[in-house]
């Protein structure tokens, strides 16, 4: 048995404008991004819970903070992050159990995750504000 390693010169094709991240990959990286965002905002969320539960006076502070337009925008973003992480997480749990691992099924579920998390964000967002 010969031990010659044949190193074939493979063509390098990195056309950035042509390479596209498939939908499941997009859902996957958004899962990481949304998780990182939620982690970074944990102190803000804990602060809000702390103010909302402290006393009637601190509840007023909480109400004032969350009614600020910038805080609303941030919370809407975090709401989406939570919804996306929630839906994509359920998808990953199902994939772990070998449910929907076929290419077409995985693409469909990725699309469903993106749509459902956005719809939930809009519904809850409208209900809260």
């Amino acid at each position, binding site marked *: 048995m010969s031990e010659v390693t044949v190193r074939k010169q493979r063509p390098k094709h990195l056309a950035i404008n042509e390479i596209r991240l498939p939908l499941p990959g997009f859902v996957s990286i958004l899962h990481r991004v949304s998780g*990182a965002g*939620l982690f970074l905002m*944990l*102190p803000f969320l804990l602060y809000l819970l*702390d103010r*909302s539960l402290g*006393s009637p006076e601190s509840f007023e502070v909480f109400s004032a903070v969350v009614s600020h337009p910038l805080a609303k925008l941030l919370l809407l973003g975090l709401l989406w992050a939570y919804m996306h992480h929630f839906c994509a*997480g359920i998808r990953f*749990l199902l994939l*772990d159990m070998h449910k929907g691992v076929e290419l077409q099924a995985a693409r469909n579920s990725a699309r469903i995750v993106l749509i459902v998390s956005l719809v939930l964000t809009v519904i809850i967002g409208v209900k809260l504000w």
Partner: protein
Amino acid sequence: MVNRPIVGAHYGLKDWIAQRGTAVYMALYTLIFAVCTLALPEFSYSAWSGLFSNGLFKFLSFLFFLSVFYHAWIGVRDIWMDYVKPTGVRLALHLVTLFLLVGYAGWAAQILWRL
């Protein structure tokens, strides 16, 4: 031929299971939280703090926070391991993450058991 047993050391298996176990609990708590919040007659201090004064809800909420922090530890640690290669910087980031999350757990306990 690679003749290496693929089980035995259990590197990461515990974390993998913990990440999923906490995820399932958080998903269930999210539904419980949604139902309890929707059932509130109004969003006022008395109604909101009344919900969290309930012993069972307080207990479930604290478990939720512990799940969040443990889950976040595994997830954030994975992010550092994927993108941060210098050992010293990575170790420092791991420690900062760990200290923050342990501190948050204390904070969450204080928020809930003050009621």
